[in-house]
Each structure stands twice: as C-alpha cells, then as structure tokens.
C-alpha cells in the first residue's frame, strides 16, 4: 500500500530538508509513498479565520484527491501522509467536522462536485510519527540503524498541533511516540515538561517580543537539561527555534548554539544516510553528531 504524500507549502520551501529527509528515510525503510497529484494549499490556520466553509472546501479537495487516487489500497482506506503539523491538523479537523456537521458536508460536497470530485470520508489522515511508530514499528527502525546515536541527548519537541486537540495516536499531555523513536535510534530522550508548549507560532512575525520569549523558554530549558539537540516534526517549530538563535544572542546574550533538527534527519543519520540526502547542509546551527562520528571517527569528548 502506498501512502498519499501531502507535502504542503512548507516542505517545498523553508522546510525543504524535512521533505528530503522524510522521503530518504521512508525509502530506506521501503515504505512506498507517492505525492498527491495537483494538491493545493491546506489553508493553514489563517483561512479558517477568514471563511470557514471555503477553508474546509479547500482542505477537502486534498482529502478527495487522496481518497480517489489510484494505487493499490487493497481494500484498506487510502492513507494520506501529512508531515507538516499544520497541514496534518487542518486535514484532520476538516475530516472530523465534515463527519459531524451534515450541513457543512453538504456545502463542501456541492463544491467538490463542481470540480468533478467526490469525498466520502474513508481516507485516513496520518502523521509520519504515527506511521513510523504504528505501521513501521520501532523494532524495524532499530534493526535498520547502522550508526547508533549512542550518548546523544535529545529533547523531543512535539509542538502544539500534532496531539492537540485530537490526540489521534498519542497522549495529549505527555506524548511519547517521538521519545520511543529516538530511543530506537540509540539516543537518550531528555525528560522535559515542554514537549507541547507553544513555540510562538507566527508571533515571531506579528508580535516578535512575545514570539521570541516563547522560543527562548524552549531553547533555554532544553539546554538546561543538557540536550544535544531539539528534535521536531513541524516546519514552523523548526524554523522558530533554529533561525532566531542569532537574534537571541544579540538581544539577550543567550549562548545557545542548539541544533534544531527534524526527526527524520535524526533517523537518517542513524541509518547512515548522507548529509545532503538529509538536507543537513541547509541548517543554520550545525547538526548534532554522535561523538564517534564527529571529527572523523574520534570521540568528541575524548
């Protein structure tokens, strides 16, 4: 069965390394994916605030495309793979709202019919965390590891959208799927209470003093707990936490230098994939390495 891959805008632009590393890792795990043909913007959170019905219709078009895509579902419902946390939430929310509100479903169905599409609600919206833990399994991932991330301490950061409000595959208050995955890679997850605390979202663009403060809380706490890196599954979280570290140094004299990596980049490293395959050359803060891998095979702390 092939997953219907919905990249969304981020994975084609600022979050390119997320796409590169995700596809590389899935290839290494022999998980077949195909990009949905002619997908469109999910609408993000912004469009919902402008016009709900149109926003739902916009997102529903992607659900309809995935549901009707050819490609061997073998009687199982089509699976739409949405790596961006915002896309994932919007698609999931759209699906739930259409299932619960007949009047909305009617309007959206009419809109889809106008472009010769149909949507019945059979498609399943999946996040890579969900697929990696529940479909692939941590055992299979651990077996594929060639460069165990031994000695690396990782702060798993889930962000606000992956488990809230729906918590489709993990717990709301203390999610653990990412922690289990990095454990399978040989790394040690840092126990910290900020796994789902707000990263600032779009506030860095609108009210930067608030946004920056929220970014700093996460970075400083991860640093305080001796994390070698923060690992995330959301392009906006990754951007917020990585790209403002320079500004924090200028404004607050924070000495952070904390790598903020996509989970799939971390997995790819453990699988022994090349830096360019994982988009690591695009990072602002150099990626965290296993001590043995650093400096040409010599242990960094030796």
């Amino acid at each position, binding site marked *: 069965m092939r997953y219907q891959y919905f990249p969304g805008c981020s994975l084609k632009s600022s979050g390119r390394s997320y796409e590169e590393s995700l596809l590389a890792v899935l290839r290494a795990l022999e998980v077949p994916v195909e990009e949905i043909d002619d997908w469109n913007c999910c609408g993000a959170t912004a469009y919902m605030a402008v016009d709900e019905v149109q926003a739902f219709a916009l997102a529903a078009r992607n659900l309809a495309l995935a549901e009707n895509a050819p490609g061997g579902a073998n009687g199982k419902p089509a699976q739409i793979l949405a790596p961006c946390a915002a896309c994932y939430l919007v698609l999931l929310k759209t699906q739930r709202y259409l299932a619960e509100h007949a009047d909305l479903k009617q309007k959206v169905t009419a809109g889809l019919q106008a472009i010769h599409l149909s949507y019945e609600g059979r498609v399943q919206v999946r996040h890579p965390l969900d697929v990696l833990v529940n479909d692939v399994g941590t055992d299979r991932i651990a077996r594929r590891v060639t460069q165990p991330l031994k000695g690396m301490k990782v702060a798993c950061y889930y962000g606000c959208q992956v488990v809230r409000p729906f918590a489709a595959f993990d*717990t709301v*208050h*203390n999610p653990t799927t990412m922690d289990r995955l990095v454990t399978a890679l040989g790394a040690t997850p840092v126990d*910290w*209470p*900020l796994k789902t605390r707000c990263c600032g979202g779009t506030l860095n663009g609108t009210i930067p003093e608030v946004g920056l403060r929220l970014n700093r*809380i996460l970075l400083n*706490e991860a640093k*305080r707990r001796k994390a070698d890196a923060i690992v995330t599954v959301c392009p906006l979280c990754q951007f917020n936490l990585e790209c403002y570290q320079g500004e924090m140094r200028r404004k607050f004299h924070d000495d952070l230098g904390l790598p903020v990596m996509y989970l799939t980049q971390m997995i790819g490293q453990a699988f022994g994939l090349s830096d360019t395959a994982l988009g690591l050359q695009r990072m602002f803060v150099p990626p965290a390495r296993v001590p043995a891998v650093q400096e040409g095979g010599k242990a960094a702390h030796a």
Partner: protein
Amino acid sequence: MPDATPTNGTPRIGFYVCHCGTNIAGTVDVKAVADYVATLNGVVVSREYKYMCSDPGQELIQQDIREQKLNRIVVASCSPLLHEHTFRHATEQGGLNPFFFQMVNIRENVSWVHTDQAAATQKAKDLTRAAIRRVFSHKALEPKRVPINAAVLVVGGGIAGIHAALTLANAGKHVYLVEREPTIGGHMAMFDKTFPTLDCAACILTPKMSAVKSHPNITLWTYSEVAGVDGYVGNYKVKVKRKPRYIKEDLCVGCMECVTACIYKDARFPDEFNVGLSKRKPVYIPFPQATPQVVLFDPETCLQLKKGKCKQTCIEACDRECIDFTQTEEFKDIEVGTIILATGFQPFDPAKTPYYGYGRYPNVYTALEVERLVNASGPTGGEVVLRDGSHPKAVGIIHCVGSRDEKTNRWCSRVCCMYSLKLAHLVKEHTGAEVYNFYIDMRTPGKGYEEFYDKLLKEGVHFIRGRVAEVTDWAMTPQEEGKLVVRVEDTLIGSVRRVPLDMVILAQGLEPRADAQDVRRMFNISCATEGFFLERHPKLAPVNTFTDGVFIAGACQGPRDIPDTVAQAGAAAAEALALIDAGHMELEPNTAYIREEDCSGCKSCVPLCPYKAISFLEDKKKAWINEALCKGCGTCVAACPSGSIVQNLFEDEQIFNEIDGLLSELAQV
C-alpha cells in the same frame, strides 16, 4: 377473585385541575381544561383549584363524593410520585376505594416542559380525556400488607455505616454490618484531624468502632461483600460472601506474634492504609485500632498462599493455633427487612489530570497521602517530609482537582475547600512552611467553617484565586531551579504567576465508587447521571430510594462531610426503624395474576420473571404467580401468548380505554 371486584356501577366522575400556583396555571389555561372536561361523558363535577394538595383541596374532593355521589375521581396536577398517595387518601376519606382514583401529570409532563400556552392546554385536555375514559374500567383493589423483618443489613463500615448500625442496634434491632475491607472505619479512619474543630479523627471514631464490635445486636462481617439480594421490602434474602482471612477470627486476639515471625523479616509490600507511603508484611493488621483486631493474610503476597511453599514460621509462632491456610470463601444467607447502603466514595484519581504532575514529580502528593503524612501514627510519625527526607519550605495546595471541571467531574465535591484549609493549617503547624492555596472559590458553608477560613487568613496562609494551569519543573529564574513551579492565573491581580514550591498537594475530589453501577443493580436502585446513588426525592426523601426498604446514607449519595454523613446515617436508621416499628407495609396492588381457564401451561412466563415470582403448578399444569413476590413490572403480561395474565391497575381494558380516550378527538382532526 380479582375478576369479581366491584366496578362501582355507572361512572359518576369528579374532575379537578390544579393551578399549582402558577406552576401549571402559568402555562396551561386551567379554566379551559375544566370547562372542556365538564362536557365529557360521565363527568358530574369539573373544577379548577389553586392547590389541590392543600387541605381545602382534598376536602373539596371528599365533599363532592358525599354530596354528588361521585364514584370516580380524576385529578390533573403534578407527578403521581409526589401526590398520588395524597389524592388516593382523600378519595378513601370520601368513602370510595382509593383505586377509583386516577392522576394526570400536567406539570412535569406539560407545563414545565412547554412554553406554547395553546398547545400545552390542548395536551392537558388530551391527557385528561384519556384518564377520564380509563377510570370507567377501574376496579376496587386492596393493597397488599407485608410484614417487616426487624433485622437490618448495613452495607459499608465507614462512619455512615457505623453510625446507622449503632443507632439501630441501640434501638434493639439486630444489624448485620458488612464491610469489604478487613477493618471498619472507612476513609475517616485515615484522616488526621477533622475540620473545623481540629479534633482528632481517630479519637472520635475509634470509640464508635469498638462499640460496633462489642454490641450484642450487631453481627460484624468485615472482609466481606454482599453477593446477592433477593426478595422485597420487609423480606429481603441476602447472600454475603466472606473472603478468607486464613485466620480463625474467633480465636485470634491480635497479638501479632505471627507478623513478627513472618519469613519476610522486613515489611516490603505497599501498605493500603497508608496509601502506599509505607510497607507492610503479607500478614498484617491494617492499623493499630483496626476493628476487628484480627490479622489477615494477603493471598497476593503470602508465600504459602501464592506458591504453596513457605517455612510457615507464622504457624509456629501462633500458640492459639488460629492460622488456617485451608480457609476458602464462605457464604452466609441472612434475612433482613430493610437495607441501608453506606458504601461511600472513592477519591478522584489524579492520573486523569496529568498536567498536575502526579506520578511524574515525586513531591506532588494527593490530599489523602498528606492526611497520612501529618498523622502521628502515619508512615513518618507525623513529620511532614518530602520523599528525599527533607522538609518543605513552600507548599501549595491545588483545589478542585477532579471537581468543577468540564474535563473530569463537573460537580463541587463540597469537602475539599475545608479539608484543604485544615491541611494548610496542619502543614504550617508541622513545618513552618509558607503555604499557598490555589482556589477557584472558597466554599465554606457550615457551622464554624467560615470562621475557620478567617482563622487561616490570620495565620498567614496565602490564598491565590485561580485554577492552576500546570505543575511543572522548568525553571525561568535561578530561584526556580530544582523546584516545582505552579503556573496559575491570579484572577484577583489579573496576571499569570509562577509560584516555586517544594511540595504540591492535590485536593482530589470525591467520586462514585468504580463499582457503584454493579451495586445499584444488585440492590435494584438508581444512580444519578454522575453515578452517585439516586435518592427518592432530593429534598423530601433524601435517604429513601425508589426501592422500598432500601435506604442510602453518606457519600454514596453525593459528596458530603462527616457531620452531614452522620446526620444522614441517623435519618436512614430512623426510616428503617419507622418501617420496622410499623410492623408491616402496604404495597401497591399492581400485581399480576393468571386466569387459570386461559393458561395453556406453556411456561413462557416462568423464566422471564426477574423476581422469581412465577412457579408452575405440576398438578394443574398451570402457571401461578406469588403476589407477595410480584413487583408489577408487567414482563409476563406482555409475554403470555394466550393473554391469560392480567395485571391489576394495568388491565388490557384500562389501557385500551386510555388509548381510545387519547385518540378519540385527535382522530377527528
């Protein structure tokens, strides 16, 4: 035979519609209803009156019966649950058999649930027309009289059960007190002090526990559960399961030699009485004042019971030869007339509020744990210490954990504000720490309660008004390093605060017990939506249930404190005594009987009866209903293929008349 019951000649019906102040008259045009009913066949008198349940209202019925020679009475007013008895009595006082009366509920079923006056008035007329037609086929019936067995079963040995049992026993009635745990005492035995007087819970409870044990009128069965209930008011047959303690209870004197001699030299299993804060051995007595003062063996941890292999040093140590590893479950059958359920509550499980860190941060405690910590006989001898043995310098108490919360339980648990104040006082007294209360509203309605709150304010305890968002351990400042941080919106100063603390106490709310549904089914009573046992009337029958002879007391009916629990236990005992001393009870004659000439002997009805009231007469090849056991549920009536079962008050003709009456004018529309 019931078939020969007089039908009282040609119907002369008196009809009365009640205003119930404006409760009914505010929505239903009562005059229009009375005028309409006056035109119906058989109606001799049709009146409206402000309060039919008042003495003059009842007198009106009696007078009309005498002067107008009425032989049927219909009243349109409130629910039969409230006043059917009143009007039946008035009918009887007027000289008629009370079952020639019929009630129409136009308050709960009409005025309270509708706003459109014209439609409501029409519905009132329709329902009344059905009742008028129904009483044509009413018959005189005689209520059943059943004797009341004087023995009482009390289920649950907390303060409610203890108080009810002692009250009844002191009145000379025999009481069976059944308690699930190895000792009586319930939650109250675990508390340190009681609010607002700060008298020691054990000091006031243990004398009552001893009194239960030594009372000649009380049979105390601890470590036991009710396994089955059969019968009906006055005549309940109850099966009690006694779990094996592996100790001959009548021989053991609680010397604890066996505990000392146990092959486990150290206590290593979580002690239930100290909510896991200390350890016990596989053989133990729950606490020093446990009643009965008898040890028990825990089959989950005792090597002999678990693996069948142990040196049995305990047996050598017991010179009274009390230990018996061959004991098994034992069942006792008893007969009682009344039952008091006092099964209590369970504390809210804070695992359901993970954002408060219970189970994640070791120094987050439940209130019940802190009750044990501050108790002189508790795991630390009354010293309030953290898990690492250090003394807290700042302690926070979070109110409403699992109360007043859409995500967990919506109700106010009533006792938490007061016990939080008590714990604040005790913790401050024991440690000198700064104590913070995080509350939504302070609810202190009780004798001396507000004064106690005032005392705490003067003691310098801090009060922050706001629901706590989370308990966490991420530090924003050096002062917060290594502390628990409570994040809360202080709604009185209008800002979000971070309060660093060493210890956090969760004031857990009160919940129905996990098996409340099983218990209610066994005793054939109801639960309210949130799961607490449902009283017959929230104001006027607070300890009665909808099952005659079964009463409820204490926190199984809803969260309440000790004074209210004791008052309710006394009330339940008084209700039981009232039945016992009356000697008998009149039951609704709505029982079913079999018309033998029509019964084909197919036995379909026999297994269907939930009350085992139907037997099969082999000599006649007919079914037979024991009317003393029949509860009038109607299951057999509906199931009988030959239509040979008749139920008093619900005869086919009566039901069909009612339907005809309801539909007669609707059909013309």
